Structure formats: C-alpha cells, structure tokens
C-alpha cells in the first residue's frame, strides 16, 4: 500500500472542512464551546489553579476571616503538641502571619507525610513544617523565602573567628559523622589545598573539640549550635551557613494573592525584627555568639 500526501489533497481536505463548518455553524460553535469548557475545567481544577484575576482561597480568607495552616507537631522547638496546644517557632510564625493579615489562624496538625496532600486537596491554605524546596512539587507549589536556615554553620573560637570555610585552608574542621556538615566538608576538601576532617559522633562533641583547641572550627547544624553556645562561652558562629537548609512556608502557586500577602507579612516580620524575636524565644542565643555580617 502506498500512502501519498499531496498539497492538493490537503487543500481539498481543508476546503471540504470549511464547507462542512458553513453547513453546520451551530454544531461547530457547540464543539468549540465544549473544548473551551474542558480547557477551563482543567485549568480550574488542577492543584494550585490560577484562573484570571481570581484567587478563590484569598477570597475565602477575606470573607471568613480565617486561615488554615498545616504542620506536623513532631519537631520541637519548631512545633510541638503540648497540653497548652500547638507551640513552637512555626506555630508562632503562623499565628503572627494571621494576625498581620487580620484573620484568625487555625493550626491543623497532621502527619509529616500528609502535608503536601492536605495542601493539594485544599484542606489547608499553607504549610509551615520545616519544609525545603522539593523539585517534585515545583509545578504547583510556591515556596516563600526561608524563615529559618537550619543548615550547617561554622563555629570557631571567639579569639580566632572564622567566617568562611576558605579560611580553613591548611587547617582542621570538626564535623558530626555522616551529617550534611560531613558531606559539605568533604566537598570543600576537594576544593582547598588541604583540609583535615575530624569526625565526632555528636555536634556537641565537635564543638567541644573547637573549645579545647583540637581543631580550628566545627561545621555543624545551626539548631545544635544555638543550644550549645547558650551554655558555653568563648565560641562564635559564622553569620551565614556553609551548607544552607532553608525552611520555607509552602502555598499553592495558584493562590497568587495569598502568596503575595504571606510573602509581604514575612518580609515585614523580618524587617521589624519580629521573626528574630520569635526564633530567639525558642532557640536560645547569646549576644556574643553570632559574627556580624560582612
């Protein structure tokens, strides 16, 4: 069998199609409307859908004056379920955002594995639960700027402060075994002339080695550092993390008005110091521990 497609054939087919449409204008119109309706339906029902200038979630928040926030209360001091209710950094941030939006915040607790599903189905308006950017969800969620960087940060003696790991060229860094700091130090080991890595079982052991002068610095997680430095003098932590791990609020991308409002509230909280105040209330800090930004 030979199949021949010629321009004449295509022209004829188009012409016949035109004739068919002219004879049946209402049927054609109905077909077009159906296709359009299907397209609109698809746009409207997909998660995080945005349709024109409307943000249905923001509209509901405005009318009902409520905001539903999902979190897993299994991560003190960020979120914990206590007899007094849901407490912690994330609970306080969520309530503060609600206050700034002029609405009441309702915190709904759920298992960590169910967080994204609850956002997907519209059960909650946003998530705040130590979540980091995950490419798996990038087509329908919006990640805000980080409200906390829990990454790996350098800790050094106050009398010989180290701000960047490059300053450790030729020196020794202490890390927690198999942690993100361990992996990060190994990457820097390949980039510097020489960097010795000493591994310790726990972050506190690594920081103790810095205190005892056994190593030049420790690369450990920010939360452990803040607790340790609260009880031990003579150490400082760098102003920025070497291996960042930003915790972000997660919203449906299609709720563009809510996204804007939450981002704005977060920006304001950073600008007026409220965010730092909340964090410092739950994570101890001392006035000498953090190096000034360079």
């Amino acid at each position, binding site marked *: 069998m030979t199949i021949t497609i010629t321009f004449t054939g295509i022209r004829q087919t188009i012409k016949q199609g035109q004739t068919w449409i002219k004879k049946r204008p209402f049927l054609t119109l109905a077909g077009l409307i159906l296709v359009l309706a299907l397209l609109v339906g698809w746009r409207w029902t997909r998660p995080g859908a945005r349709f024109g200038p409307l943000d249905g979630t923001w509209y509901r928040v405005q009318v009902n004056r409520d905001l539903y926030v999902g979190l897993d209360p299994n991560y003190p001091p960020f979120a914990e379920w206590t007899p007094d209710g849901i407490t912690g950094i994330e609970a306080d941030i969520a309530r503060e955002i609600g206050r700034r939006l002029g609405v009441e915040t309702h915190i709904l607790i759920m298992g960590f594995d169910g967080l994204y599903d609850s956002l997907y189905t519209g059960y909650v308006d946003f998530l705040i639960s130590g979540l980091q950017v995950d490419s798996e969800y990038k087509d329908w969620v919006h990640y805000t700027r980080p409200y906390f960087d829990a990454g790996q940060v350098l800790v050094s003696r106050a009398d010989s402060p180290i701000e960047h790991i490059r300053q450790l060229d030729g020196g020794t860094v202490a890390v927690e075994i198999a942690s993100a700091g361990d992996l990060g130090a190994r990457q820097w080991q390949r980039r510097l002339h020489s960097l010795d890595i000493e591994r310790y079982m726990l972050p506190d052991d690594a920081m103790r080695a810095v205190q005892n002068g056994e190593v030049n610095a420790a690369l450990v*997680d920010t939360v452990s550092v803040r607790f340790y430095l609260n009880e031990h003098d003579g150490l400082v932590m760098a102003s920025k993390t070497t291996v960042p791990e930003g915790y972000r609020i997660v919203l449906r991308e299609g709720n563009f008005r809510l996204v804007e409002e939450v981002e704005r509230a977060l920006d304001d909280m950073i600008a007026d110091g409220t965010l730092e105040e909340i964090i410092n209330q739950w994570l101890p800090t001392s006035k000498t521990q953090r190096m000034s930004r360079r």
Partner: protein
Amino acid sequence: MRINLISLAARLYILAYLLRWLAPASPYVALGPPQMVETQHPVVCTHTRLTDEVQEWKIQRNMEMVREMGTATIVEFFPWPYVEGERGTFNWAHFDRIMRHAQNQGITVLARLGLVPAWARPPVHEKVTNMTYITEDYYDDFAEFVGQFVMRYGDQIEGVIIWNEPNLGIEWGNRGVDPEAYTELLRVSYEAAHAARPDILVLGGALAPTLEPEDSGSGMNDLRFLERMYEAGAGAYFDVLSAHTYGFTNPPDMAPDPTVINFRRVELIRAIMERYGDGDKPIYITESGWSDDPRWAVSVRPGQRIAYTLEAFEMVEDWSWTERLCIWNFRQPLDQRNRRDAYYALVSSDFYAKPIYEAIQAYARGWENPYQP
C-alpha cells in the same frame, strides 16, 4: 464527506505515529553476566522498594547496589492486585523483571505478599475500602495467588511473607484487627504454598511494634496479637516468624520492656514463641532500622544511626534464633525528602549511597568502617 474526515484522521494518526519515533529511546538494559554476592555476614538483609519502579534500569541499579553492599537477601513486596487485576488472569511481567535482575545479581528474595485487587473487595458504592481489606470469602483466592507465585518463583525465593503488619487497622482494611481471621488467612496460604512447593518457607506475623491496647480501633499490641495467633492455632501454619522491630531514639542494647518500643522488643516476641512450644523455629527480622530525619522527634543523629545499626547486626549474629536482619528501606523510587521514609533509606532516589550504606557495606564485606568516630 465522512470518508474524507476519516482520511484526515488517518493521516494525522500516521503523522503522530512517525513523530513518536523522535522521542528518546528508553535506556537499553542488558542483563550482563551472572554475579555473586560477596559477604562475610549473611545476616545482612534489606527491604527494597521495587514494586512501583517503572524503569528497568533502575531495578537493575538497585540490585547492583544491593549486591555491592554485600547483601545476599532482600525483602520485596509483590502485591496481589498487580498480577491478578482481573480474576483468573495473571500478568507476571513486572515480577519477572524484578526476579530476573535479583537472580542475575545472586540475590535471594523474601517475597512479601499482600494487598487485595478491586474485584475481591466490595464495590465502592456499597462500601469504601482500602487495598488491605479482605474478607473470608476471598481467602482462597489469595491463597491461589500465593500458590501460583510459589510455583512460578519457588527456586528463586527463600520464602513468602504472608501479609504485612496485620495488627494495624490500616493494614487490615481500616477495621478492627482480628488475630483469628489473620490466622485463617495464614492457614490457607501456608497450605497453598506448601502444595506448590513443600520446601518453601512460609513466614507469618510481620507484626508492627505497637503499644495499642487490645480494644483499640487502630491496632493491637504485637505481643498480645501474637499470643492470640497462637491460641488460634497459628503455630502450625508458619515455618519462620517474621518480626518488625524499630529502635526509634533508643540504642539497640536497651533492655526489652513490654511498655517500650525498642530494638530488643523482638526478644519478647521470642519469649512468646518459646512459651507456646515454637522455640525451634527461627525469627527473621524483615523490617528494622533507625531514622536520621533531622526534623523528627523520634529519630537519631546520622552517626548514631550508623553505630546502632552495626551494633544491631552484631547482636543478631549472637542470637541463635535469628537469621536475617533486614533494614527498612534500601531506596525510595521518588525523591521524597519531605517523606519520613526517605530518612530510613540507605540510598537516595538518585542512587547516591548515603554514609549508612557505606558503613553497612564495610560491615558486610569485612572492611574497615569509614565512619568510625
């Protein structure tokens, strides 16, 4: 006119068919020469997650990394609905693929069998059920699947695990759990498996460690569930007891206590077996491990996870009654940093070997632990 429309549709179809060839081909997977697992510790085992792995090269890479870790045995899940979506029609293609690669890498499989196809559950307009809902009417159909499975793969597997964590409501059709009903399911499955192949090992139990009281709607204390299984006569219907034991924040050597979930809780399971005269059967720990999730109150630090896991292997090797310790889980198919199971995995979804993988590999193959403090 109608003929022309058909002609146009045919031309568009041909064009689409031709354009399809522009798509990149899926990676070619060659089986390669047969391999052998090099290990000094056959007790080391892991639970793989290939059930939902679509791409064959990923199945192969999983198996290669399992072999390179010095692991001669895996637990893998083979869901009944995947093979018998229509009653009486068996499609073994995906299972064949997994078995082919396991065999080629010299790995023995402990096959976990479970879940229920839609045709064996009530229609959704009558009752909304999940995939673990099974009624006595379909026990024989499940047993038929077990028998067919053993007949097909009997020489490639060490044994079959009948169901998963039947003492949890979510694993028993979101209903109250029922040790006597599970015992009946175990009985018919045991008979079908042994009819297909007398030397196959049937593993029963696979109970979740939980402290839920007996009248709880969501589960039942594993110790009590096991006692009731024995009282219902389950002892005659398994060759090996499958046990799940997790450490959470507790070190492996923490003494067993009925009110605590820790690694040595399996010793309490063992005591029940002995009390019911079943002490000559071994236990296979088919799920275990510690999580190093940095955002979970019941996880441990990464270094502790390594130390605890290696210590657990040493302890199990000292116990005469345990032959396998399978770490949950080897790898998750999807990048799931925001899922708890990702922090139990030994390998990331993009096949990055985590430090815990390297530590277990060193232990299994008799090398020096690279993560010694």
